[in-house]
C-alpha cells in the first residue's frame, strides 16, 4: 500500500496548478494515485480558503481553478474505476477495488479528524455509495464550471460540462446531458474544430436517440453520416438509421420531417437545355442537375423536386438573355459554390458581397430619378449570422408550397456525383425561378431552402411576324435584287395552303422562278427542314404559298425583285443652260454626287394570321447619275450625255440611244458613239455625244430622251430582259445666232505687240441668221420691215493680261439679218509678254425698260435684278483680276440710270453665241526698256 506523501502547501501555492510531485517508478494499485492527487488538491484548496478572505479567493480563481478541475477529473476517474457511475451500481469486483482504495487511505490525520468536513471525509464518503459520489461529483463539477465561466474560460467550462454530460449519459439521464452537449457543440462549431465537433455530435446523437427527439436525431445522423472524420462503418450506421426510419410506416400519415439538404447532398451544378433557358410556350425544357451525395451508401430517393416560383413578366426575355451572358458560361452551366461546412461560419467562408448599381428612371422623360447600390445576396449574409444555431435546429428550413414543381421520381443517389434530369413542358409565359430543392425519403424530406445563385428560366409566347429585308446594303433599281423574307411563326402553325398576298407596286416586280426553296428552322436557329414553295403572280397580286411549318419556327426564303430604272425627272431651266449652270446650283449637285437618287416602293402584304395587312417599304437606288450639255462649233451643234456610275457594281452599257421626243422629222441626231458594249466601272463615267442636224429652221427647244441598256458586268446571263435606263432632258435656244470674233492687231508698223504699248482690238459681231422665232422679244425693234435688236458687248479680261483702255462695253443696235456684221474697235494694252489669250468678249441682250414691268416692280428691284444678272456671268470666272472690269460694268450700267427704271441685260444662251476666237493667242514681246523681268515658275 502507498502512503500519501506529505507535501508543502506553500510549494503548491507558489505554483498552484502544477501537481508538485509525481511519484515515478512506484508501483501502485489502480486508483491510488488518483486518490492521492484528489486529496492533495483539496487539501491545498482548503488551506488557501483557510488563510484568505472571500475577496482574495475570488481574485485568485484563475490560479485555483486548475486544482478544482484536476480534483473533479480525479474523482470522475475514481468513480468510473469503482463502478459508481454505471446504471446498475458497482459489481463485486468494483467493490473489492473500492475496499482496497479505502484501506489504502489509512486513518484520517489527526488535525482534521474532528472537523465536519475534510477532503479525507469527502473522498471516503464519495467512494462509499453511488448517491454520495453523485452528490460530490456534481458539486465539484458545478463549482468548477462556475469558476471557469466566471473568469471567462468558456472552453474549459464546456470541456468539464462534456465530462458531466458523459456522466449523465452513464446514469441514463439524457435530458440533463443534452444541454451540456449542445453547449459544447455550439462552441466547437463556432470555432471550427472538426474532431471535437464529430465526437460531441456522436454523443449528442446518442443522447437525442434516448430522448426520442426524432427530428434532431435524424439531422444529427445525417450530419454524422456525411462526416469524413468518422470511419466508414460509423457513417454507414448513421445512414442506416435514417433509412430505417424512412422505411417505417409513419405514425401519423402526412407528417413530414424536414431536414436541411446540405448534409445529405450538395447541389453542384445545373444545366438547362436549351442552354439559354428560354423556351416558347409548349416547348420542352430540361434541367439537368448534378448533386453530390454525402451519404456513404447508395440511397434510393422516392422523389426529387424543385419548387419553382412563377412570375408574369412578359417580354423580358431579352433581359434574361443579357443576364445569361453575364452569369452563365457559354455552355449554360451554372455552378454552385461548394460549402465547406467544417469551417466556422464566422470567418472567411462568408460570400463576397454581390453589389449592383440600380438606376430608376422616370417613365415619362427617362430622366434619372434615383440611383443606388443593391446587394443581391443579402439573404446569404444575413442567414450566416444565425446559421451556427440553425445548423442544428431544423426549424430554419421552411418548406415552400409552390404550384409549379419539377419532379423526378425514384432516383438512386450513389455516393458522390449524381446527375438528375427534369423535363417540363412550358405552359404559361413568364419567368420561372428555381427556389427550393427537396429530396424525399418517405416522411423524411431533405430541403435546400434557397438555390443560389439565382436560377431562372423563361417561357415566352410570340406573335407571328414577317420581316422583309434586302440582302445587300441598298437595293439597286433596274437589276434583279434579292430580298429576304423571314416569317417567324410564333404561336401560329403554318398550314399547307397558307399564303402571303403581295399587292404589286407599280414599278416593282417580283420575279418568279420555277423553283423556290425555303429553309424552316426552329427558333433557336437549328435548321429543321428545307421546303419548296410556289410563287404565283397576276398583274395585281403576287401570291406566295408558304410551306407548312410548326409553331415557333422560322421560314426564311429569298425572292428577287426588280424596280424600273427611271432617272428622276430633270430638265429645269438651270439644266438647260448646260455648261453655264450657275455656281450655286453646281454646289448642290456636287453634294449629291455621291449619293444615289432613291425611289420607294410600298408593298402591302396580307398574312394568313392577321386580318390587317403589313406594309413594307423597299427603297431602291438608281445606280446612275446623268448630265447633259450642249456643245457648239460654229453653227454645228452637239449634245453630250455623261453617265456616272454611283454604285459599287460594274455594268455593261449597250444600245445607247437619243431620240427627239417631239418627233420632228427635220431634226436628226447622229450618234458619234461606238456601237459595241461599253464597260462602266464603279464610280466612273461614260460620255456619249450626238451631232444635231436639221434641215429647216430649228425649233426653239428640243426634247430628248436618252436611253441606254445596262446589265451587271459580273453576271453571265440574266434570265429576264432588263429595261433600259432612261433620262429625259430639254435643250433650248440651241441655234447659233451670233458669231463673235475678236482680233488684236499690233500697232501700225510693228510686227508684234509689245508690253506696255497700245494695240487695237477688233471685235466683229456677225448675225448668222435671219429673223427667227427666238428673236421675237422685247429687244426687237421694227421699222419699215427692218428689224434690229439691241445687244450689249463687254470686253472682260479675267486673267489681267490686258488693260482695256477706254470704254470696255457698249450697246449696239444689231440688224436682224443674216451676215449683218457690227465691228467695234478698242484699245488694249498687254501687260505681260508671251502668248497671251485674247480677252473675253461677251454679248448680252439689252432689253429696254418696259412700262408694264416697271408698274409691277419698283426701281430698286430693277436695279437689283439687273445687277444680279450681270453678276451671274461674272461670278463664273470669279477671280481677283476681274474686279476691275466688273466695277466698270457696274458704273457703266448703274450710274447712268440711277433712280430710273433701268433697261435689263439678259445673257444670251450659250448656244446662241459662238465665239470663234476662243482659245486663240497672240504673241506679245517684251518692250526693251523693261527693267523688271518677271519670272514665274509654276
Amino acid at each position, binding site marked *: 500500500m502507498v502512503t500519501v506523501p506529505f507535501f508543502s502547501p506553500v510549494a503548491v501555492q507558489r505554483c498552484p*496548478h*502544477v*501537481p508538485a510531485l*509525481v511519484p*515515478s517508478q512506484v508501483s501502485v494499485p*489502480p486508483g491510488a*494515485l488518483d486518490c492521492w492527487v484528489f486529496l492533495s488538491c483539496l487539501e491545498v484548496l482548503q488551506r488557501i480558503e483557510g488563510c484568505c478572505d472571500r475577496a482574495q479567493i475570488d481574485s485568485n480563481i*484563475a490560479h485555483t481553478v*486548475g486544482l478544482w478541475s484536476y480534483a473533479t477529473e480525479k474523482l470522475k476517474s475514481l468513480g468510473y474505476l469503482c463502478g459508481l457511475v454505471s446504471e446498475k451500481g458497482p459489481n463485486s469486483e468494483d467493490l473489492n477495488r473500492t475496499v482496497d482504495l479505502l484501506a489504502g487511505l489509512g486513518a484520517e490525520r489527526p488535525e482534521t479528524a474532528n472537523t465536519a468536513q475534510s477532503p479525507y471525509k469527502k473522498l471516503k464518503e464519495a467512494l462509499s455509495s453511488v448517491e454520495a459520489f453523485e452528490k460530490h461529483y456534481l458539486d465539484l463539477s458545478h463549482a468548477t464550471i462556475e469558476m*471557469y465561466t466566471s*473568469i*471567462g*474560460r*468558456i*472552453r*474549459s467550462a464546456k*470541456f468539464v460540462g462534456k465530462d458531466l454530460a458523459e456522466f449523465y449519459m452513464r446514469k441514463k439521464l439524457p435530458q440533463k446531458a443534452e444541454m451540456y452537449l449542445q453547449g459544447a457543440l455550439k462552441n*466547437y462549431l463556432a*470555432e*471550427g*474544430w*472538426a*474532431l*471535437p465537433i*464529430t*465526437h460531441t455530435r*456522436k454523443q449528442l446523437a446518442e443522447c437525442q436517440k434516448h430522448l426520442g427527439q426524432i427530428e434532431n436525431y435524424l439531422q444529427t445522423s445525417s450530419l454524422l453520416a456525411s462526416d*469524413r*472524420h*468518422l*470511419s466508414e462503418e460509423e457513417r454507414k450506421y448513421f445512414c442506416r438509421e435514417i433509412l430505417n426510419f424512412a422505411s417505417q410506416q409513419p405514425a401519423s400519415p402526412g407528417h413530414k420531417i424536414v431536414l436541411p439538404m446540405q448534409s445529405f447532398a450538395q447541389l453542384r451544378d445545373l444545366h438547362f437545355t436549351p442552354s439559354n433557358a428560354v423556351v416558347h410556350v409548349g416547348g420542352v425544357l430540361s434541367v439537368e442537375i448534378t448533386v453530390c451525395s454525402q451519404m456513404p451508401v447508395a440511397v434510393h430517393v422516392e422523389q426529387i423536386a424543385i419548387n419553382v416560383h412563377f412570375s408574369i413578366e412578359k417580354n423580358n426575355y431579352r433581359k434574361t438573355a443579357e443576364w445569361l451572358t453575364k452569369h452563365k458560361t457559354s455552355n449554360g452551366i451554372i455552378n454552385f459554390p461548394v460549402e465547406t461546412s*467544417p*469551417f*466556422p461560419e*464566422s*470567418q*472567411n467562408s462568408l460570400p463576397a458581397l454581390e453589389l449592383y448599381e440600380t438606376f430608376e428612371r422616370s417613365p415619362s422623360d427617362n430622366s434619372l430619378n434615383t440611383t443606388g447600390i443593391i446587394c443581391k445576396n443579402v439573404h446569404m449574409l444575413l442567414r450566416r449570422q444565425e446559421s451556427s444555431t440553425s445548423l442544428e435546429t431544423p426549424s430554419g428550413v421552411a418548406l415552400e408550397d409552390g404550384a409549379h414543381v419539377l419532379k423526378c421520381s425514384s432516383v438512386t443517389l450513389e455516393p458522390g456525383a449524381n446527375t438528375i434530369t427534369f423535363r417540363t413542358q412550358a405552359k404559361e409565359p413568364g419567368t420561372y425561378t428555381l427556389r427550393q430543392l427537396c429530396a424525399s425519403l418517405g416522411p423524411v424530406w431533405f430541403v435546400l431552402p434557397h438555390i443560389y445563385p439565382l436560377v431562372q428560366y423563361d417561357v415566352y409566347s410570340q406573335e407571328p411576324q414577317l420581316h422583309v429585308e434586302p440582302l445587300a446594303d441598298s437595293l439597286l433599281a433596274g437589276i434583279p435584287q434579292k430580298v429576304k423574307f423571314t416569317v417567324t411563326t410564333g404561336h401560329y402553325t403554318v398550314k399547307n395552303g397558307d399564303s402571303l398576298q403581295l399587292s404589286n407596286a407599280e414599278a416593282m416586280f417580283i420575279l418568279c422562278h420555277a423553283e423556290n426553296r425555303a429553309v424552316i428552322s426552329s427558333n433557336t436557329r437549328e435548321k429543321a427542314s428545307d421546303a419548296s414553295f410556289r410563287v404565283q403572280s397576276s398583274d395585281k397580286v403576287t401570291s406566295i404559298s408558304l410551306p407548312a411549318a410548326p409553331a415557333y419556327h422560322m421560314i426564311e426564303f429569298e425572292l428577287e425583285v426588280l424596280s424600273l430604272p427611271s432617272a428622276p425627272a430633270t430638265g429645269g431651266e438651270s439644266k438647260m443652260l448646260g455648261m453655264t449652270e450657275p455656281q450655286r446650283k453646281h454646289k448642290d449637285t456636287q453634294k449629291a454626287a455621291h449619293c444615289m437618287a432613291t425611289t420607294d416602293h410600298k408593298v402591302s402584304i396580307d398574312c394568313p394570321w392577321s386580318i390587317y395587312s403589313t406594309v413594307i417599304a423597299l427603297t431602291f437606288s438608281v445606280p446612275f447619275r446623268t448630265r447633259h450639255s450642249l456643245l457648239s462649233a460654229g453653227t454645228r451643234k452637239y449634245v453630250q450625255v455623261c453617265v456616272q456610275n454611283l454604285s459599287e457594281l460594274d455594268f455593261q452599257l449597250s444600245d445607247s440611244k437619243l431620240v427627239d421626243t417631239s418627233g420632228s422629222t427635220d431634226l436628226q441626231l447622229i450618234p458619234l458613239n461606238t456601237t459595241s458594249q461599253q464597260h462602266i466601272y464603279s464610280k466612273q463615267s461614260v460620255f456619249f455625244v450626238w451631232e444635231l442636224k436639221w434641215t429647216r429652221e430649228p425649233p426653239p427647244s428640243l426634247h430628248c430622251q436618252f436611253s441606254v441598256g445596262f446589265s451587271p458586268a459580273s453576271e453571265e446571263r440574266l434570265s429576264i430582259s432588263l429595261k433600259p435606263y432612261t433620262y429625259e432632258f430639254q435643250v433650248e435656244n440651241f441655234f447659233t445666232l451670233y458669231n463673235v470674233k475678236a482680233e488684236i492687231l499690233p500697232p501700225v508698223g510693228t510686227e508684234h505687240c509689245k508690253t506696255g504699248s497700245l494695240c487695237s482690238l477688233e471685235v466683229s459681231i456677225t448675225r448668222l441668221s435671219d429673223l427667227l422665232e427666238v428673236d421675237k422679244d422685247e429687244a426687237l425693234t421694227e421699222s419699215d420691215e427692218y428689224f434690229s435688236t439691241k445687244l450689249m458687248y463687254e470686253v472682260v479680261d479675267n486673267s489681267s493680261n490686258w488693260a482695256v483702255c477706254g470704254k470696255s462695253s457698249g450697246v449696239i443696235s444689231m440688224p436682224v439679218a443674216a451676215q449683218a456684221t457690227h465691228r467695234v474697235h478698242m484699245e488694249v494694252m498687254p501687260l505681260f509678254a508671251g502668248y497671251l489669250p485674247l480677252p473675253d468678249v461677251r454679248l448680252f441682250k439689252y432689253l429696254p425698260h418696259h412700262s408694264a414691268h416697271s408698274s409691277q416692280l419698283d426701281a430698286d428691284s430693277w436695279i437689283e435684278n439687273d445687277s444680279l444678272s450681270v453678276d451671274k456671268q461674272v461670278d463664273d470666272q470669279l477671280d481677283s483680276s476681274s474686279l476691275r472690269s466688273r466695277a466698270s460694268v457696274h458704273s457703266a450700267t448703274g450710274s447712268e440710270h440711277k433712280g430710273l427704271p433701268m433697261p435689263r441685260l439678259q445673257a444670251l444662251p450659250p448656244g446662241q453665241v459662238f465665239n470663234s476666237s476662243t482659245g486663240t493667242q497672240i504673241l506679245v514681246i517684251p518692250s526693251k526698256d523693261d527693267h523688271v523681268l518677271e519670272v514665274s515658275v509654276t
Partner: protein
Amino acid sequence: MAVCVAVIAKENYPLYIRSVPTENELKFHYMVHTSLDVVDEKISAMGKALVDQRELYLGLLYPTEDYKVTFPNQLCSYGYVTNSRVKFVMVVDSSNTALRDNEIRSMFRKLHNSYTDVMCNPFYNPGDRIQSRWAAALLGLPPSLCSSALLKGTVLR
C-alpha cells in the same frame, strides 16, 4: 519532445494540428482547444504592450497528465502568438526530461519560421488549413506520415 503541434488562426480555428501518438488525436484536440482559454487570457493581459516590444512566447499554459494509468506522463502545453495573432500551441512530454525554457523558445522560433515559409507560398490561401509536412521535423515524424492530408482519413476512435 513535442508530442503535438497546433497552429491556430486568429479566429481560433485550427490551421494545422498534428500529434505523434495518432491514436490519441482527439484528446490532443481537446487539450489544445481548452488551452486556448489560457492563451486568450495571456494575450489580453499583455494586450496593452507595444506590438514590437511584445514577447511572442507565452510560456507554460497548461499542465496535464496522460490518462494512461500504468505510465503517467507529464504533458505541458506551451503557447506562442505571432504579431498577426496566429497562435502556436505545443504540447511537450516532459515526464522524463525537463525541457528548459530556451529549448521551447527555439522550437517555437523554428515553428514560426516554417509558418512564415508556408505563408510565402503563393499557392497557399491565407486562412486555409495547412496541408504540408512543414511541422513534421519538430515532431520528429517521417515526412511521408505527415504529408497525409489533415482533412481526410482522420478517424476518431
